């Protein structure tokens, strides 16, 4: 079983009302160092019997065709190493 993350964000030039709503709310709650917020989507996919050689290409096609609306969104595919634990894996963090 292979695991892939697809992160989908609005293109930088596209208005992001959701991110703006969060950005305006945070200072009211005392978080006043926030200068910009963008909100996007994250997909965690599990694939069976996926050929590791084609895994990235498959995920990119799925993102291109369905997961992202490429008229207004960009996406990024991350293939997780086979031995990665659950995605709440703090090791990814700096």
């Amino acid at each position: 079983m292979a695991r892939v993350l697809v992160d989908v964000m609005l293109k930088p030039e596209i208005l992001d009302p959701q991110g703006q709503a969060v950005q305006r709310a945070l200072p009211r709650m005392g978080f006043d160092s926030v200068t910009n917020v963008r909100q996007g989507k994250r997909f965690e996919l599990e694939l069976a019997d996926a050929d590791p050689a084609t895994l990235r290409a498959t995920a990119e096609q799925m993102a291109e065709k369905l997961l992202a609306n490429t008229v207004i969104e960009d996406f990024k595919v991350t293939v997780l190493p086979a031995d990665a634990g659950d995605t709440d894996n703090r090791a990814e963090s700096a």
Partner: protein
Amino acid sequence: MPARIGVVTFPGTLDDQQALRAAAAVGAEPVALWHKDRDLHQVDAVVLPGGFSYGDYLRAGAIARFSPVMDTIIDAARGGLPVLGICNGFQVLCEAHLLEGAMIRNGDLHFINRDVALRIENNRTAWTSDYEAGAQAVIPIKNVDGRFVADERTLDALEAEGRVLARYLANPNGAARDIAGITNAAGNVVGLMPHPEYAIDELTGPAGFIENRRVPGTDGLPFFTSILKSLVSA
């Protein structure tokens, strides 16, 4: 002096005027409350109305929950003030942890505006005492994030403590255990996804032949007559 029912307006609230109208319809004094104002202006009960506060952009009700007026309402509710959260108001109550659970996207992912039949499971709260136990009511829903979820333990507790307020007869959105509304243990804080304030008269309410039954369009009124009576008798 008539009981004073306050209705909060957040930015993006839509159903505040209709909630005020419902309060007036049963003879209460409707009082508009503003999200930036901590003062509740001596109201005897509060309605958190429906709508898309702050666009519901982060999560429904998530940002409204941090309004100044909510600080006061959360304290007052813990002290026994009757609070009814309708739709977005229910979501605000969940975000504020005055009620358990959360609301996620409807099962088919769409906004649903439909007149649904409910069974009132608990008529011992401040907001439902005017219903017969097990009464049916046809009340509209109109939401996109209306699917109630909670972990199994919480759901079991809600059932065991009789805190399921109302259930859908035909579940429109996949809500856990057909739950349309719940109450806190004290029965003063109630959350309901359907909109009783839109079922208060024959002209604009869901009236006619619905679910094989002639419906008067006023099935939501008892929420407002209940609170009025419980305030008078209190």
